[in-house]
């Protein structure tokens, strides 16, 4: 029963959602709508599970004095303070019914003064690593790498106004070689073709995996292997 009930739920929900796309009338249309609402409700519970899991994992680390355990204290304290500030809307000028992100609330203060600078810093650091990695690893070692290098140069130039200034003097007959035009062509033709091929491949994989789940062949989502 423990195994069969989840399998039956998956099969029914999956089949109904597929049918509701092709037959959007009662009862399938209504069932499809309701299943989507249930999904949204369950998605909210994922936050509770995520929060619980975070406390369990980091609580264990603190309790066992595992490596770098003081960082776990910061994680748990940050989580709890933000949770309480948001849930009880501490300092919110409009009270408990006001916008959780209202200016002046403790939640907004944490968001603006801690969360925002931390995320911005993490993302900004990428620019330095990209530059350093490009210098050390971006080599024209063979034909494929050379094509990649030339393409990268055209896109790098084409994404800035410099690209225009480099080739603006070209006659109209050679307009295709104008760097911004070339960059747009790379994005719209070779990039698009490659992306579409990848997307179609992924979609076929998702369809086959979904069918395996609906038919109960794939049970990895229940913590089991395939049948």
């Amino acid at each position: 029963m423990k195994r069969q009930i989840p399998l039956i739920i998956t099969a029914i929900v999956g089949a109904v959602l597929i049918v509701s796309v092709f037959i959007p009338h009662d009862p399938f249309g209504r069932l499809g709508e309701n299943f989507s609402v249930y999904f949204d409700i369950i998605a909210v519970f994922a936050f509770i599970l995520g929060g619980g899991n975070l406390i369990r994992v980091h609580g264990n680390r603190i309790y066992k004095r595992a490596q770098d355990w003081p960082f776990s204290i910061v994680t748990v304290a940050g989580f709890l303070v933000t949770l309480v500030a948001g849930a009880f809307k501490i300092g919110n000028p409009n009270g408990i019914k006001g916008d959780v992100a209202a200016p002046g609330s403790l939640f907004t203060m944490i968001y603006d003064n801690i969360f925002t600078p931390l995320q911005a810093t993490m993302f900004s650091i990428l620019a330095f690593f990209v530059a350093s990695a490009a210098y050390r690893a971006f080599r024209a070692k063979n034909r494929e790498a050379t094509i990649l290098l030339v393409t990268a140069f055209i896109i790098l130039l084409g994404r800035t106004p410099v690209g225009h200034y480099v080739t603006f003097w070209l006659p109209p007959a050679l307009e295709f070689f104008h760097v911004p035009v070339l960059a747009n062509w790379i994005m719209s033709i070779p990039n698009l073709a490659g992306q579409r091929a990848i997307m179609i491949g992924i979609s076929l994989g998702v369809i086959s995996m979904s069918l395996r789940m609906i038919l109960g062949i794939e049970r990895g989502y229940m913590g089991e292997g395939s049948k």
Partner: protein
Amino acid sequence: MAMFDRVKNIDRRIIFLCIVLSVIVPLLLDITFTEKASPIVKNIFDKIESLPSGSRVLLSLDYGPSTVPEIQPMVNALVRHLNEKNHKVYFMCLWATGQNLTTITVDSVQAREFPEKVYGVDYVNLGYKAGNEGLINVLLTDMKKMYTTDVHGTYIDDLEIMRPVRNLTGFDLIVGLGGGTPGIKEWILFAGDPGRIPVAGGSTAVQAPLLYPYWPNQLLGLMGGIKGAAEYESELITYYPKYKLKSKPGIKMMGPQAVAHIVIMLFIIIGNITFFAQRAREGKAKGK
């Protein structure tokens, strides 16, 4: 040859310093360039321009603080344009981190720059709801199943702006502005395609190539990174010259981006010169 070895093994802190300078110096010198909207950006501008006054446009701010420098200039330019055309603006977000940014946008651009517009009549902030693409799926059939109140706790039925909107098909345009999943792709797949609603987008530069397959049939237009934002800003200035004096972060950030790109290219060229020099040296040694 010792020089090539020194260059090859350059201290990475020198590279970091060059990147810092390539960003700071153009900002301090206020280096800007003239931008011209590419077709993929112009399509969005033209669509908003051609919609009849009072059209309903949904802006979904699906991003976090890490992508603010790229996405926020697009959001600000769009909000200004929508208000200039007297469209009804609906703000919402699929990302929990987006609610604060939505409130900031509403306070700092919508309410501050357009004080004559009335909340609940001309614009509304619906805020964040969990569910990702599942949320879009429900909104497509019935908005009130998920949004019973706005961010201030006011019932949706009490807001004049919400009365004509039963579901997503009530919108004339959806603009997804985001830096990941859920984002523009989900808006296309779960709202644009099944509901036949025009969807446009603004994404980070790294995300933009992934969205090109949807353009132009499923995705009306796309602003990719700072470049996309700068192009939209320049188009806005062309049509509404009063914005020439206002803050235009997209155009302003194109200077540092251009210089940083050139610096990175120079490093790649230097790296390749040292690589070929080393290969030639190794070839010679083998020959001996």
